[in-house]
């Protein structure tokens, strides 16, 4: 793992991926904080793991005693539409209102 250079551009890119609109001041703050945490996290690179080639993280938890529980595919009651809509910040009828996407 190479040392990551956390510059303002990287913070902007990550904030964009994370759907956050940071102020210039916040970009500076997170540049400093993320650099500090990432340089600590980079110590993972020191670990020499000798796990079996077939080992996969997404299946390993199952063998450890927790397996995915499946439900029967039957129709059950659910939250009434009116109740689900009640906390929408903006709505039109039974639709959540968002800014126009298509011009």
């Amino acid at each position, binding site marked *: *793992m190479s040392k*990551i250079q956390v510059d303002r551009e*990287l*913070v902007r890119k*990550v*904030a964009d*991926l*994370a*759907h*956050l*609109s*940071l102020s210039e001041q*916040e970009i500076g*703050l*997170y540049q400093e*904080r*993320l650099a*500090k*945490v*990432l340089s*600590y*996290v*980079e*110590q*993972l*690179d*020191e*670990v020499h*793991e000798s*796990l079996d080639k077939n*080992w996969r*993280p997404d299946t*390993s*938890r199952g063998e*450890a*005693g*927790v*397996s*995915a*529980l*499946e*439900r029967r595919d039957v129709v059950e009651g659910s*939250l009434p539409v009116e*109740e*689900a809509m009640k*906390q*929408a*910040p*903006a709505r039109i009828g039974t639709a*959540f209102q*968002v*800014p126009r*996407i298509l011009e």
Partner: protein
Amino acid sequence: MPANQTVKSIVEQVRSGKLTAVTAAHACLERTRTIAQKLNSHLHFDEAAALAEAAAADLRIKTIGADKLPLAGVPVLVKDNICVRGSKTTCGSKMLENYVATYDASVIKRLREAGAFVVGKMNMDEFAMGSSNENSAFGAVRNPWNLEYVPGGSSGGSAAAVAARLAPVALGSDTGGSIRQPASFCGIVGLKPTYGSVSRSGLVAFGSSLDQIGPLTTTVEDAAMMMDVLAGLDASDSTSVKHPQSGFAKALLENPEALKGMTIGIPEEFFESGLDAEVGSCLERAIADVQKAGAKIKRVRLPNISYSVAAYYVIATAEASANLARFDGVRYGHRTQGANLNLKDLYRKSRNEGFGREVKQRIMLGTFVLSSGYYDAFYSKANKVRELISRDFAAAFDSGVDLLLTPTSPTPPFKLGEKLSDPLAMYLSDICTIGVNLAGLPGISVPCGRTKAGLPVGMQLIAPKFNELTLLTGAHAYERATEWHKDQPPL
């Protein structure tokens, strides 16, 4: 709440007809009225709703019979990331400041069925991200032992209130130590059950492969009574399983000296550098007490445990960045008032306004470690290290160890503001608890001493997966042999 009431004593009094849920609620509310403000422990304290819940519990007790209800008349405080229908569930965040839960979490249903009722929703670090409860959008919680100090986090409101005896029990959630570390800082008992043993349905998700709900109580016996009700299979949580054990409270009564003949492993890594001297001496005395109670001590090693904080801050933040993507200002939660925005800017501005500093930091960290070009180096590697840490624990238990004993936190409670500017210092305060979450094990913090300044110190016991019986009976035997759990903060 009379300052000496426990879950057990309330159930006994309700069963003998000396107490009703409504009377217990009144006592609880009266004490809360005078003390909660000092601690800032409560986010929602609705007396009328609490009394209505208590009246419903009394009706249930009358109809079904207190003897059939394992938690008859017990008032419970609930961390504000667990849904209680009709009540605000803010997660300590401006994002959910006005969000009212539309359903009950599975644990709430279980508690009500058992005769218990909810009396308050508790302050917490925003979205359970923090170790001091200073990250709440609604103000920091204070430690009841000294109001200038933090109560720990993220279940800080739950821990502070139980320590102050505002109720005998609170629910918390633990992703990297968020039940055990505040329990330790506040001088009470905090249990993080095995991953999968308590349903997460209705718990607002942070790190889904790590999150687990558990109780904060003043005695181990009360934790066992809670575990009897909380543990169990739930179809609403696909990671929940039927616990192979049951009858935790009964086991404590039958085997009060469980430490006799047990082998307790001491992982040397936790006692090397970085351990506060006063915490170290409390732990040395605790190890001697465990020995006096009849246990053998065996030094063990967990070779990869020093990497647990690094692995955790990759895995937990990756999961958080995905889980918190749902907050977009469209269906519920905070929405920016900005005008003439396109959809993407609506998301970005709503999220930037709704989330606090630490939450944004972790979302970005998680987004980064999952991003193209960095996924293998960070996320895949962290998962492999997680596996190695799990294997280290398994090897320690396979070497003939029944329980592991460690400090819960490497330091005593610290002052408000002391670690806020340094994210790493704050993250490292969870170094003793994080490995337990990565490995999915059960862990408990019990009080084991106090510093010269009078602040509580906790000891953590860790058991193999789904072996809460050994964990609770061992912790109970230690508690019986010591007096620390009887101390109460000078409020």
